[in-house]
């Protein structure tokens, strides 16, 4: 082929000129002039380049974990747990860490806005906006009670007090304040109230439980207090033998919590109550002679024995022998803990199910050993779905003049069937306190943007003895105002007989309530209450060992009987109808922070879907409908209809379809029905007609093959064979690299890992990993340095055996990536890291192609961080550009920092001093990092365990990561 273009410049000459011109262009003009602008008066504690930490609280779910915010030059860059705080204990889940992206969300409101006659929002001054709101409230008050309504998240603190006081001051009733927590386990409260007179969620200690049985309660993902429960549960894992905590998952769909279970009882949707009754029946059956039964539960035998085990098993959709086997386990392995129902099992009989589970707990003596009453402060009990429906009705009837939405988005959280949007259109003044546009703000007449939690003062008491304090970690980014301050200022304009609080300043409010409590607790001879308060602010709260109720709960006379009968059997499903299962996930919870970039970008652990809703159907259902993953399914229920891409998942029953809660599709399908006893939403118990929509919408799927194909990539061990298989590595091609000082290495305990993705978010935050979006995800391009690999089994169609494997750079001793780089951009450091030098990388991608673990990611385009998201970037880590390969560094910036500290203090680096971001945040404490050269280090001891194996060890890469095999239990006889 000719090198000369038709009548033009020869190609080579062109390239030479272009190359030289490029060089000249790159060199001649100096980089644009930069300005250095000094501060007028420097803040005393901010030193440029040195991180500063503040303690505050996480408000992404009602659990209320403590948070340590790392700030640099006055801006928050990363959230971690607060090690002193009793709920999180230093860990923070995926959603909690992603809160920093809500702070820097590009769409945040810059200041108060008012909707004009043309329907558009335009900026308005705070004074004007508050005046308008005060006038509207005054007018509504004059028209009678109940015309001012407030919707809020649970606020167990001063903010809740102010809301209540404001409503009371304008003549409102307590019911005018709707506490919107869609996933609150109201049936557990209702059952506790009915049985024991205790409308509480019991406090748990799962570490003491030998067996945990969960009826749809995703306690490792979003149920009640997932970080705390994960820590407790993991404490009983990672060992072989009878003292390892077992988990049994009961539900129609295998959730991520179910993946950690040793056994999955594939109960039919709605079959949870018959199954629970079957367990209780077997336990109290005198014929089974279970010793040490609580007598008040044993006395229920006559009522229970009337139920037929075969009938119960048939209604549950499981074998009678399975029920008996689990009942035997509960009788033998004490104490245990029966949890539930969770959202995916919360049907119209949810209170009865919760009651039977509590009776089982009482029967086998779990109260006082793994669960306690008396620690739920019950200061802020969320409203029920029935109350939410009543509010929508009142709005639709024109009985509401002012609707205040404070940190709640009722129009997105309530089922579409309630038509809350249409009802809101009949409210003359809808006021949203949202930080950024949401469904309620889209209909609001007035937007009074709240500070983000990281800009606010506040107090949260998630349970007795725990007082967590929120304080600003940075100055507010925009012209926002804390909602509690706005409410107090509005109250100030109402000419009330007495002010609601001494001042509208949120800090004064914090001092007035939390401050007084702390100082009173510290009062005493020789005590210094002021110092106690200062210390509480510094540590992030004040915690005391509140004593749980000593006495066991007393079963009220005849209270149990009403829960021990089953209603008529549900009608058989019509042709084409399946049970609808709605489930929350660890990444999205109830969906309130759903659209944050990290939470969208990180694939769901079980399905590897990102950026899209999906509907799970079993392979048999898929075969029947003739669809495969990515084909659109049409779901039509009594509440509404939706089209969702299918994901074929063997972890769901053939008679069910599952959709994630918090998605618009789940909202459209969500039944308006309730559990009549507790008033809770019946997420379960409805059916939808399922058909193929005949179109395709390819899902952004990260998985390759979800099967191990006989390669035993993830190993398991049993009590009978407690050692993992190790490869024979007698042959060496390359000289062994030497690591004279340190050899950084990691051990990951797969028996503790729950796949909650907290580590992945931590990695995104710490290492400036870019978010590439849905299009890139559809092309399989995902920049995460750490991903949770998930295998569904060995071969398609084989037994379902879900295994998780956190996969990150293995920092191999014989690293295949290093030998193929033509420019030495990746090389082996003396400390054993496979370094990636971005400024040397030319993007050949040879290294990635040669990596057996597929942990290197390539920047196909420049990352995009829309303002003000760049404020979150970690200044200690390079932001990579297009054309560069990147990968896990074992958080080398943290290694260097710790080494520097040690050198300053003239000592060697201590074991445990270096904690990579993933290990730091792990709620299960499954990750250990340390020096493999030190045989006494915690890492070396963990890696020597017989359960230890290395991924693809047979290729002789000699990874620095040792996985500790998951323990598979021997089947019960």
């Amino acid at each position, binding site marked *: 082929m*000719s*090198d*000369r273009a038709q009548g033009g410049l*020869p190609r*080579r*000459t062109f390239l*030479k*000129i272009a*190359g*030289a*011109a490029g*060089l*000249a262009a*790159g*060199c*001649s003009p*100096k*980089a644009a*002039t*930069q*300005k*250095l*602008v*000094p*501060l*007028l*008066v*420097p803040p005393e504690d901010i*030193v*440029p*380049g*040195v991180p500063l930490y503040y303690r505050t609280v996480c408000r992404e779910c009602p659990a209320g974990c403590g948070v340590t915010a790392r700030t640099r030059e006055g801006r928050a860059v990363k959230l971690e747990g607060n090690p002193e705080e009793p709920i999180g204990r230093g860990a923070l889940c995926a959603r909690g860490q992603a809160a920093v992206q809500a702070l820097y969300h590009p769409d945040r409101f810059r200041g108060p806005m008012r909707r004009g006659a043309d329907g558009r929002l335009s900026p308005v001054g705070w004074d004007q906006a508050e005046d308008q709101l005060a006038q509207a409230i005054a007018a509504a008050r004059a028209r009678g009670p109940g015309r001012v309504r407030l919707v809020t998240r649970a606020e167990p603190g001063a903010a809740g007090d102010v809301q209540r006081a404001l409503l009371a001051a304008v003549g409102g009733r307590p019911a005018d304040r709707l506490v919107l927590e869609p996933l609150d386990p109201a049936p557990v409260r209702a059952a506790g109230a009915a049985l024991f007179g205790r409308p509480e969620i019991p406090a748990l200690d799962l570490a003491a439980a030998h067996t945990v049985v969960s009826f749809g309660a995703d306690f490792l993902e979003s149920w009640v207090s997932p970080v705390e429960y994960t820590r407790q549960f993991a404490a009983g894992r990672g060992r072989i033998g009878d003292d390892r905590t077992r988990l049994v998952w009961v539900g129609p769909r295998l959730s991520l919590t179910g993946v950690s279970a040793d056994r999955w009882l594939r109960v039919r949707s709605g079959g949870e109550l018959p199954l629970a009754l079957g367990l209780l029946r077997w336990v109290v059956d005198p014929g089974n002679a279970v010793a040490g039964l609580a007598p008040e539960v044993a006395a229920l035998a006559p009522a229970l024995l009337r139920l037929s085990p075969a009938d119960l098993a048939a209604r549950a959709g499981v074998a009678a022998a399975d029920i008996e086997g689990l009942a035997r386990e509960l009788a033998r392995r004490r104490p245990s803990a029966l949890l539930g129902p969770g959202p995916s099992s919360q049907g119209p009989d949810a209170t009865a199910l919760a009651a039977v589970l509590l009776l089982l707990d009482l029967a086998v003596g779990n109260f006082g050993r793994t669960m306690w009453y008396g620690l739920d402060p019950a200061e802020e009990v969320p409203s029920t779905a029935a109350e939410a429906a009543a509010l929508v009705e009142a709005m639709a009837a024109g009985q509401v003049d002012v609707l205040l939405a404070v940190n709640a988005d009722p129009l997105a959280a309530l089922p579409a069937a309630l038509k809350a949007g249409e009802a809101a259109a009949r409210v003359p003044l809808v006021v949203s306190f949202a930080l950024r546009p949401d469904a309620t703000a889209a209909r609001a007449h007035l937007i009074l943007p709240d500070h983000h939690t990281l800009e606010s003062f506040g107090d949260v008491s998630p349970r007795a003895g725990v007082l967590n304090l929120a304080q600003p970690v940075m100055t507010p980014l925009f012209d926002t105002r804390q909602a509690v301050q706005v409410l107090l200022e509005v109250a100030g304009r109402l000419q009330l007989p007495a002010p609601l609080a001494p001042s509208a300043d949120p800090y004064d409010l914090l001092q007035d309530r939390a401050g007084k409590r702390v100082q009173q607790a510290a009062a005493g001879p020789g005590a210094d209450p002021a110092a106690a308060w200062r210390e509480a602010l510094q540590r992030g709260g004040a915690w005391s060992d509140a004593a749980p109720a000593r006495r066991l709960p007393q079963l009220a006379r005849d209270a149990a009987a009403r829960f021990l009968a089953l209603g008529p059997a549900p009608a058989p499903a019509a042709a084409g109808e399946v049970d609808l299962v709605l489930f929350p996930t660890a990444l999205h919870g109830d969906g309130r922070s759903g659209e944050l970039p990290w939470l969208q970008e990180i694939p769901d652990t079980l399905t590897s879907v990102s950026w899209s809703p999906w509907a799970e159907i079993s392979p048999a259902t898929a075969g029947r409908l003739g669809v495969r993953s990515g084909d659109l399914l049409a779901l039509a229920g009594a509440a509404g209809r939706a089209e969702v891409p299918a994901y074929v998942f063997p972890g769901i029953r053939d008679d069910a379809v599952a959709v994630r809660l918090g998605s618009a599709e789940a909202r459209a399908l969500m039944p308006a029905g309730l559990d009549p006893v507790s008033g809770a939403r019946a997420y379960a118990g409805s059916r939808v007609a399922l058909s193929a929509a005949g179109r395709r919408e390819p899902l952004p799927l990260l998985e390759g093959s979800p099967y191990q194909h006989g390669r035993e990539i993830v190993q398991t061990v049993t009590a009978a064979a407690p050692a993992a298989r190790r490869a024979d590595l007698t042959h060496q091609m390359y000289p062994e690299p030497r690591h*004279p*000082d340190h050899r950084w290495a990691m051990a990951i305990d797969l028996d503790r890992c729950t796949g909650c993705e907290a580590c992945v978010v931590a990695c995104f935050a710490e290492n400036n990993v870019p978010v590439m979006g849905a299009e890139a995800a559809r092309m399989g391009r995902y920049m995460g340095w750490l991903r949770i690999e998930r295998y569904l089994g060995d071969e398609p169609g084989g037994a379902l055996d879900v295994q998780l494997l956190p996969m990150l750079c293995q920092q191999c001793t014989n690293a295949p990536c290093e030998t193929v780089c033509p420019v030495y951009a990746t*090389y082996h*450091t*003396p400390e054993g*890291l496979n*370094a990636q*030098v*971005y*400024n*040397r990388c030319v993007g050949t991608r040879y290294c990635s192609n040669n990596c057996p673990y597929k942990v290197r990611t390539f920047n196909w385009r420049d990352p995009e961080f829309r303002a003000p998201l760049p404020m979150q970037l970690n200044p*200690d*880590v*390079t*932001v990579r550009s297009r054309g560069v390969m990147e990968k896990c*560094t074992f958080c*080398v*910036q943290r290694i*260097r920092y710790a080494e*520097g500290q040690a050198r*300053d203090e003239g000592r060697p680096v201590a074991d445990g001093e270096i904690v990579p971001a993933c290990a730091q945040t792990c709620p299960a404490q499954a990750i250990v990092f340390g020096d493999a050269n030190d045989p006494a280090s915690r890492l070396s001891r963990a890696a020597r365990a017989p359960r230890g194996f290395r991924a693809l060890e047979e290729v002789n890469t000699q990874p620095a990561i040792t996985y500790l095999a998951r323990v598979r239990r021997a089947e019960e006889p």
Partner: protein
Amino acid sequence: MSCRPSIASLLTGLAGALALARCGERPPPAPVQPIVFSHRIHAGLNAIGCTSCHASAEHAPVAGIPSMDRCRGCHKFVKEDKDDPAITAQIQALLRYLDEDKPIEWVRVHRLPDLVYFTHERHVRSGVQCSECHGAVEKMEAARQVAPLTMGWCLECHRRKQAERPLERAHLTDCLTCHK
């Protein structure tokens, strides 16, 4: 197909090579600052130590630009030079900034690329003198860059120091020491 190099390609190649060779080797001249600030008078004549103003050099990655408050600390009292009206005029310029509570927008003199993680603390604590990189600032009127601040120049020193104690200082030439 012809294999003879054309004159045009030779010329452009030469220009490119020259540009490459000179790129970054010669430090730029001192930039024009918003007000005249003489390091000679402060650090030289009055022998004020570097860390009196660049306060975090010993304990942070960044040496620190002195705050306006720090200028005020002395110039609350030093308002004129009785012998030199030119210097008095310079001080007056500063005092105007202080009166108006405005920061001086200094033009940056030393700059490393974003991919380099340089820390003053590590260098100062290892006994590197400020002047080794910044030159004899106490003799300069306006601060200017004297060292090329290229990777080759950094490494030249790192190699020399490493050769003094090769075992202890193996890290000095590791890429990850400066690039993260």
